[in-house]
């Protein structure tokens, strides 16, 4: 700016804050107008004078005036070691600052590799795209995963599309009408385009599924896109068409090659594109199930998933071979096309997070595992789980194995739609069948209007117990806290329903509170799950807390088994009655008609409620146990085994306490009683089973009247009983479909190991106490089984 344009000042207009003695060395110039003009062009997004490729952060970084802690929006530089040249001796370390987002293939800062792309480059770019996909599924946001691939940016994809679309110009469109359009670009270029297009398509698809299911937590998935624009596909099916064309082009091309000429690279690209394509097809299909063709669609999706898994597995040895002979030029290409911090300016003032990408083999294996989960966690469950008991058993591993958020989201999306469970089964019907399975609710009750009303009431809480299993394992505990309140409130309604049904059915026999039993047993299961999760997540971790946890679990499991025993007794009584009737009155027994109940005399009032299907089912009363009977029996045996395991561990801890090997802590600011109250606060509002106070715990765990030897023997007996129950259950398990097992074989082995190991260490304790030693090293090992500790004595 020239002085002639700006009025001079002789200091008369100086603000008062400047001291009166101030004497300017040169004439002061009033730049207020200039500053206002410059400022009026600024925006919140662009707070300083800048160009498209140079902004405030860049200037601060260039001047090295960034403070890592003060300026959290700093764009981190990565240190790159340059191999020494012939003249140098040591490696040269240079700081490489991330580049800004690309503006196209011919980006001004650094043009993206395009004309020089080789098949080998394309293969490794495709592999890196799979690594980005895995990172997205593992919880990174799109700017930390997908869009760290510079090709995936909207402007670059548009550029690639323009260059590769054979019908972009009018002349080419005319030619296309006359003859088959020839493909433009090289195979390498088209492969990179196809692979990147699939990455973006899968990203959008996965985001849609996860957001719709709405069960994610912040640690599961980064939902923010930071307003990064996604490439708009010109038509539906665009991506699939491009990919299929490219796959056939590669297949055709590779047949022409000499077997030693880039065969691996071609195969790697083909398999990677096919994997991504199959995954895309399967996920989009599973996200849109509806109508009467659900089973066909799921079976087709299952085939796609299995194919995707196979293809990805086949890439592993191929990429291993390619990596061995990977050229330096490929490494340079990858550095130029993938930048983990290219989107940093979008994130603003958030502190810089470590962006983690697994190495290629780990990422591929993790991706294989995630893809496999879609098969057994979603497809198999939808196709095979045809009863409430089986749904619960099949969903339990989904929960305990911490399936990926995409898998869990697909499961939840399909859990209840078209007013049916998995779009196939009526939930009230399922609940009734499940209650029949457990305790045989008689027809006289099932067909009453109050039953219908209560079943409809039960639907949402039962659905919630299923959905709970699809949540993040860590967060299940906090949701259980809320659900316990709902189920506790249901208890009273269940009792009223039982009383009303008993009166309405005109039965003179003893009240059989089927609904109350069902509600109470579900409540207890949720309570047990709550405590169990606390142990699994290692929230309850020291000897004292674990003693309390297992003691409470012993009580809960015993209560649960009491409820189940009552239900089993009702079922057994009903079976006996039916067969007695069959022997006495063979002519009156038929499949479809309701029978007289056990001790009922007089008229049996049976009415079919509005909209209710005929819920008679005599199969559950056959003397020969059904497959589901055996599944329930196995589950019952394991519950019992766990109860004895808990009991044994409690007694083990008490023995250690009595032997002086563990001591209870005392605290300055709090107390063990306060800790206990807070730990079990969610149980206070539950009426049945009753809340156990800290005093109850002290009394219940007081074995001072037993000698150390007797206590150790009692503990050992508990482990023996648990082991024998596990062995008994194992015999039944061999007859069952592995998908319907209440507990996987691997876990059974772990439980057995815990029983045996604890028994061994109990003997060690015996030896120590006989020898009068009180200073053995104690270790609590949760590695064998995450819910039951092995108490190791050194």
């Amino acid at each position: 700016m020239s002085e002639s344009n700006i009025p001079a000042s002789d200091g008369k207009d100086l603000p008062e804050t400047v001291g009166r003695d101030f004497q300017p060395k040169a004439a002061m110039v009033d730049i207020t107008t200039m500053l206002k003009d410059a400022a009026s062009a600024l925006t919140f997004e662009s707070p300083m004078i800048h160009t498209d490729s140079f902004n405030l952060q860049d200037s601060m970084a260039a001047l090295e005036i960034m403070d890592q802690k003060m300026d959290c929006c700093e764009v981190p530089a990565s240190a790159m070691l340059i191999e020494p040249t012939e003249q140098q001796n040591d490696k040269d370390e240079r700081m490489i600052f991330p580049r800004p987002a690309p503006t196209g293939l011919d980006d001004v800062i650094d043009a993206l590799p395009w004309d020089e792309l080789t098949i080998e480059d394309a293969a490794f770019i495709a592999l890196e795209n799979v690594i980005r996909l895995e990172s997205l599924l593992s919880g990174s946001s799109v700017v930390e995963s997908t869009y760290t691939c510079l090709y995936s940016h909207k402007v670059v994809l548009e550029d690639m599309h323009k260059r590769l679309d054979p019908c972009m110009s009018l002349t080419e469109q005319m030619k296309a009408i006359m003859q088959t359009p020839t493909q433009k670009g090289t195979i390498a270029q088209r492969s990179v385009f196809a692979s990147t297009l699939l990455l973006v398509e899968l990203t959008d698809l996965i985001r849609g599924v996860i957001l719709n299911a709405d069960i994610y937590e912040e640690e599961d998935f980064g939902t923010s896109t930071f307003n990064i624009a996604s490439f708009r596909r010109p038509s539906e099916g665009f991506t699939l068409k491009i990919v299929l064309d490219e796959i056939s082009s590669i297949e055709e091309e590779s047949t022409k090659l000499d077997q030693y000429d880039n065969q691996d690279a071609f195969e790697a690209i083909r398999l990677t594109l096919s994997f991504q394509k199959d995954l895309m097809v399967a996920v989009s299909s599973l996200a849109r199930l509806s109508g009467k063709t659900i089973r066909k669609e799921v079976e087709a999706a299952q085939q796609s998933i299995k194919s995707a898994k196979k293809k990805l597995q086949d890439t592993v040895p191929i990429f291993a071979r390619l990596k061995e002979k990977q050229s330096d030029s490929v490494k340079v290409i990858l550095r130029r096309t993938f930048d983990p911090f290219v989107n940093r300016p979008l994130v603003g003032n958030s502190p810089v997070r470590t962006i983690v990408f697994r190495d290629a083999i780990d990422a591929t294996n993790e991706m294989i595992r995630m893809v496999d989960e879609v098969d057994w966690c979603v497809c198999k469950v939808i196709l095979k789980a045809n009863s409430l008991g089986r749904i619960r058993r099949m969903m339990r591993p989904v929960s305990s194995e911490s399936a990926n958020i995409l898998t869990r989201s697909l499961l939840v999306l399909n859990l209840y739609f078209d007013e049916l469970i998995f779009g196939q089964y009526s939930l009230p019907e399922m609940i009734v069948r499940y209650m029949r399975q457990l305790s045989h609710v008689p027809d006289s009750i099932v067909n009453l209007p109050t039953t219908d009303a209560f079943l409809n009431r039960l639907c949402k809480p039962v659905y919630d117990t299923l959905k709970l299993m699809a949540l993040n394992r860590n967060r299940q505990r906090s949701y259980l806290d809320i659900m316990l309140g709902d189920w506790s409130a249901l208890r009273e309604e269940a009792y009223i329903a039982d009383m009303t049904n008993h009166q309405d059915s005109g039965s003179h026999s003893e009240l059989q509170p089927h609904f109350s039993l069902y509600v109470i047993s579900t409540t207890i299961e949720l309570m047990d799950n709550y405590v169990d999760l606390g142990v699994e997540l290692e929230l309850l971790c020291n000897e004292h807390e674990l003693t309390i946890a297992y003691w409470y679990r012993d009580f809960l499991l015993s209560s649960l088994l009491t409820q189940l025993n009552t239900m089993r007794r009702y079922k057994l009584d009903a079976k006996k009655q039916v067969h007695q009737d069959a022997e006495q009155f063979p002519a009156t027994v038929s499949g479809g008609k309701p029978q007289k109940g056990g001790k009922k005399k007089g008229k049996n009032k049976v009415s079919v409620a509005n909209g209710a299907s005929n819920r008679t089912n005599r199969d559950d009363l056959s003397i020969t146990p059904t497959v589901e009977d055996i599944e329930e029996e196995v589950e019952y045996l394991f519950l019992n085994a766990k109860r004895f395991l808990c009991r044994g561990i409690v007694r083990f801890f008490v023995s250690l306490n009595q032997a002086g090997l563990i001591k209870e802590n005392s605290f300055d600011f709090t107390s063990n009683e306060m800790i206990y109250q807070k730990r079990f606060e969610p149980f206070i509002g539950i009426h049945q089973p009753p809340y156990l106070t800290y005093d109850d715990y002290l009394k219940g765990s007081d074995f001072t009247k037993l000698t150390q030897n007797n206590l150790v023997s009692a503990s050992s007996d508990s482990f023996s009983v648990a082991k024998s129950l596990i062995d008994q259950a194992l015999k039944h398990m061999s007859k069952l479909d592995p998908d319907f097992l209440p507990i996987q074989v691997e876990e059974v082995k772990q439980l057995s190991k815990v029983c045996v190991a604890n028994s061994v260490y109990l003997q060690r304790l015996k030896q120590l106490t006989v020898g009068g030693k009180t200073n053995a090293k104690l270790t609590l090992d949760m590695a064998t089984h995450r819910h039951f500790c092995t108490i190791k004595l050194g």
Partner: protein
Amino acid sequence: MAETATQNLSVLPEDSPSDDKKPPSVPQIVFVNYENESQINDVMRLVALDLSEPYSIFTYRYFLHRFPDLCIMAVDQTTGDVCGCVVGKIDLETVASPTILPTEESLDGEQSPADQPLPTPVSPQQQQTGYIGMLAVSKLYRRQGIGKALVKQVLQRMEDRGCTSVTLETEVSNKTAQELYQNFGFVREELLVRYYLNNSDAYRLRLWFCR
């Protein structure tokens, strides 16, 4: 810097009404209150050395200006070096109080569940909750009980100010810190997955005061 740390600063009193409120004594170490900005560098230096998260000066000021009495520094009397510090704050937390169970007198074992009185829910309350933001002890001064003393003092102050509980987060891998806090009665309340910027997990620990 050493003179600044101790000059004209209020050293915590040794004579207190009761033994359990007396500040713990560590040989050669005196505990001083945070008083002004001249001490902020000592706090930042200590914390920055060992903690994985990068805090800006604004974060320190947020704690120290609002709750200066919850920042306590440990000073080596012989050298004047600030060798440890603890920084805390107090928040208002909405806590759903537990339901009140019917008393034994109101329960009758013969009554049906429908007739028995239901537990009485209590509406959520706002309670003061302490938070320990930072605790750091210089490597050379560890294993002398300084960390324990600092924690004890800040807990005492939080209790005196009416807090019902105190929370903090610590990395899952930081066994030393967890043992220190668990000895005071802190328990693991929640697992915070990928809590830190380096993607590591944390435990939220909580201590409930007995009242």
